[in-house]
């Protein structure tokens, strides 16, 4: 961390619908391709913020509040994947869902997810439950269910999927078959935070779960070497290590934070030299820390629902080569039109288009225009009360409300008025019925046969060659 790093901005996560109490950040993540910071809250809402002054970008509900807090966020070039306790949601960065929300009965308490060997087109989802899910992020469907006896609370992927269990271990999973390759006991009770970068797994956690008192965090960071599959000496951190992130470009550098906001930048291979900073979190406790993919900014979340950006003011950027963020277009000034009764509606033009207009209706629609309106019977009115505007009362009829009725046929049968027939017509009618329709049909068939296939062929549409 350079000498000029400082808190650049601080932003309150907006409160949930209409309430005045802000919500705590439950998931915090830097976008991997745009200058965006994403935060999830306890009501299933995901909000994004642009740039180092955290300008609000988009916000959407990823999960209904009944599905619990947003647990984790992952990014690919299409959009952002949000994990809730009972469902998985994927939306483009502008907020629109990519595929219908995924939820299932056996998704009970999901906690973490990770991409697999298939880059960003597949994720593995797990939690404090006995089933893991493999989800295709392109099609948006569950492709596989994997039974598991271990409950995972955190997942990160480098060459393997590293998964922290709920009892203080880290399992190294094969990213293809999802089998456990190695089990590492990092802390004896609980893992509070874990990060994986290249060859190193680093964890913060607690060693003794005391039922009477609060969790006591360990005064060190545990380190595991994925290349040699061996534990490395822990990094001492006297203020009690709560959160840890590996620097994405300085491969042996870690950033460790205490709950009180003390931040140390340490070299894993040379832990004695460290750079100490203090984040200004008066009266609150840090609940999360994230480092930008560029390594040029870190974000902190605290219990006062603030998000802090720490970076060097001169060169703060989140990603190396940021893709442009899509903002709403400036509304083009419209020509001023005086609207009166005679102003034609085509004073406002349709923009240039190539596809079928939306106003085109399918031509299979057949409408019956001019049928008499449904009758209101005296019986209907009997149940109703008269008011100045008409009658009102509950719907006692057999139909649904607004049910379409065939008023024509009702009319026809009731008023069975037919024009009287001439004697000759009557005679013809009786003759027809006696002549049996089968005979007529046979004749028609015969005629059709006589026409032959040649002429019928000509009725078919012309197709070239």
């Amino acid at each position, binding site marked *: 961390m350079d000498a000029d790093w400082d808190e650049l901005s601080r932003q309150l996560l907006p409160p949930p619908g209409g309430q005045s109490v802000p919500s705590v950040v439950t998931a915090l993540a830097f976008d991997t391709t745009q200058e965006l910071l994403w935060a999830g809250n306890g009501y299933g809402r995901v909000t994004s913020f642009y740039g180092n002054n955290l300008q609000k970008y988009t916000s959407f*509900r990823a999960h209904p509040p009944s599905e619990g807090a947003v647990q984790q966020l992952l990014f690919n070039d299409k959009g952002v994947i949000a994990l809730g306790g009972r469902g998985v949601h994927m939306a483009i960065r502008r*907020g629109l869902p990519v595929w219908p929300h995924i939820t299932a009965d056996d998704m009970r308490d999901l906690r973490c997810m990770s991409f697999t060997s298939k880059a960003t087109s597949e994720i593995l989802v797990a939690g404090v439950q006995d089933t893991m899910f493999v989800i295709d992020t392109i099609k948006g469907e569950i492709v596989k269910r994997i039974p598991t006896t271990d409950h995972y609370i955190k997942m990160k992927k480098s060459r393997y999927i590293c998964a922290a269990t709920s009892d203080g271990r880290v399992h190294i999973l094969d990213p293809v078959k999802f089998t456990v390759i190695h089990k590492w006991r990092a802390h004896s009770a609980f893992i509070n935070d874990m990060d994986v970068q290249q060859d190193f797994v680093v964890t913060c956690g607690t060693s003794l779960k005391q039922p009477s008192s609060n969790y006591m965090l360990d005064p060190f960071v545990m380190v595991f070497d994925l290349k040699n599959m061996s534990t490395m000496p822990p990094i001492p951190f006297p203020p009690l290590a709560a959160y840890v992130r590996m620097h994405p470009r300085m491969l042996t550098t870690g950033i460790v934070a205490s709950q009180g906001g003390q931040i140390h930048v340490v070299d894993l291979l040379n832990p004695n030299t460290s750079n100490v900073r203090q984040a200004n979190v008066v009266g609150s406790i840090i609940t999360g820390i994230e480092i930008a993919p560029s390594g040029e900014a870190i974000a902190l979340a605290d219990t006062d629902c603030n998000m802090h950006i720490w970076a060097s003011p001169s060169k703060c950027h989140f990603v190396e080569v940021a893709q442009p963020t899509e903002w709403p277009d400036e509304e083009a000034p419209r020509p001023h039109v005086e609207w009166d009764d005679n102003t034609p509606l085509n004073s406002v033009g349709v923009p240039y288009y190539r596809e079928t207009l939306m106003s*085109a209706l399918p031509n299979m629609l057949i409408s019956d225009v001019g049928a008499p309106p449904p009758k209101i019977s005296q019986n209907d009115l009997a149940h109703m009360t008269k008011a100045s505007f008409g009658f009102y009362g509950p719907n006692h009829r057999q139909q649904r409300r607004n049910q379409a009725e065939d008023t024509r046929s009702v009319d026809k049968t009731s008023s069975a008025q037919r024009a009287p027939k001439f004697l000759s017509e009557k005679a013809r009618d009786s003759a027809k019925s006696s002549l049996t329709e089968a005979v007529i049909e046979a004749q028609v068939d015969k005629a059709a046969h006589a026409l032959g296939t040649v002429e019928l062929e000509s009725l078919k549409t012309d197709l070239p060659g």
Partner: protein
Amino acid sequence: KNLQYTDTLMSELFRELENGRLVRLLMKLGTINERQDHDNDPSWSENGERYTLKLFRDYVFHRVDEHGRPTFDVGHMLTCLNKLDAGSAERIRLTSRNNDTDFIITYAELKKQVNGAFAELMKHNRRP
């Protein structure tokens, strides 16, 4: 004189064509929005893929000024509807009533959703 008459007829014809187009557009929007059978459909809920159609209706027809008074701007409504009809690539911001949800969406995406929702209705539209 005859040519002038033809011109008048043409302009009248275009006016009426425009009316027909707009009415068809509004009928489509009217039939899909706020149906009772949507009440329990997850795709119309706040995290569903059709939620934006509700927000678009508000954007076009329920505009207010800075004091919260309703505004009636034919030009705005027509411009929005025409852009939707053509499926323009222009991006607009749609915000929910409680200001919690903020989408940035193109007219082309909205058009696709309207057509999807309408096709779904047509699928159930059985005629004897």
